[in-house]
């Protein structure tokens, strides 16, 4: 009796897929998408900022009464726009976090709040430099200036709150602060309509308002800061995601 030895072939099981990187909060934050996108945004924003700077300094005409100090306006207004946009993102992300309770919305709100504070700081620094020439004083308790300062203080408080403790309860509290803080934005926008204020109202119309080259310069500067916001936001959100990954892994080791 002969035994037939069948060639035994053990099918090798593929190694269990160990996720090197946990799934990103959003697909755009994954390495394959984020790295090239960040490079494109970085190049585009730096190029458009250079164009905006050239236009602000050489293309836009010199304003008759304020002279060169008026050129502050080309980056002051975009800073305010990005500040409002950033706090708008905080508002939406905070609502989403309170509804869904997902860490990614909390991370989005925190990242955008940081950006909002940076750009509103620029508004509060560049505004007085313009005001000194236009009004003869760096600061006046004008409705728009005061409401902008309050907005900045609310979100500095928001960031301070986030730095004190990192817990789910604190995130919820911060989300409520982020929502309430944003209610100040329409107040700032309408302050020049509702109250007697020294702050100029921006007129970009065909009849009166800004000279066409000034309008073009402002639009390019707005685009440049919007691209910059996109670049910084992507980098900041990726940082927040990695920090949360690190915290989760360290907690898992200790637990």
């Amino acid at each position, binding site marked *: 009796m002969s035994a037939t030895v069948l060639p035994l072939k053990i099918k090798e099981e593929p190694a269990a897929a160990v996720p090197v990187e946990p799934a990103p909060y959003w697909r755009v934050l994954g390495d394959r998408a984020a790295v090239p996108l960040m490079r494109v945004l970085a190049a585009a924003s730096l190029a458009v900022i250079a164009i905006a700077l050239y236009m602000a300094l050489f293309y836009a005409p010199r304003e008759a009464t304020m002279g060169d100090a008026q050129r502050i306006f080309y980056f002051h207004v975009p800073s305010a726009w990005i500040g409002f946009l950033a706090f708008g993102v905080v508002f939406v992300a905070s609502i989403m976090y309170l509804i869904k309770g997902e860490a990614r919305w909390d991370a989005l709100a925190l990242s955008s709040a940081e950006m909002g504070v*940076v750009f509103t700081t*620029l508004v509060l620094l560049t505004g007085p430099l313009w005001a000194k020439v236009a009004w003869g004083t760096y600061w006046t308790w004008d409705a728009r200036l005061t409401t902008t300062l309050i907005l900045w203080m609310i979100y500095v408080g928001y960031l301070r709150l986030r730095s004190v403790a990192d817990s789910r309860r604190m995130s919820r509290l911060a989300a409520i602060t982020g929502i309430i803080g944003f209610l100040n934005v329409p107040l700032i926008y309408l302050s020049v309509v509702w109250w007697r204020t020294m702050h100029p109202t921006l007129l970009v119309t065909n009849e009166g308002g800004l000279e066409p080259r000034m309008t073009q310069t402002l639009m390019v500067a707005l685009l440049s800061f919007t691209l910059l916001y996109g670049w910084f936001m992507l980098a900041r959100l990726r940082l927040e995601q*990695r920090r949360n990954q690190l915290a989760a892994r360290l907690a898992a080791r200790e637990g």
Partner: protein
Amino acid sequence: MTNMIIAYVLIAVLLTAYGASVYVRSRQTDAALRALDADEDGRP
């Protein structure tokens, strides 16, 4: 003219400082994650 230059310099400095802070914090976090990976793999 002076106020305009100060304003432009402030904008450049603050935005560069913020961008650098995000970069540095990212590098630090990545380094900490890599150290954790190495530790879990038993590598020195």
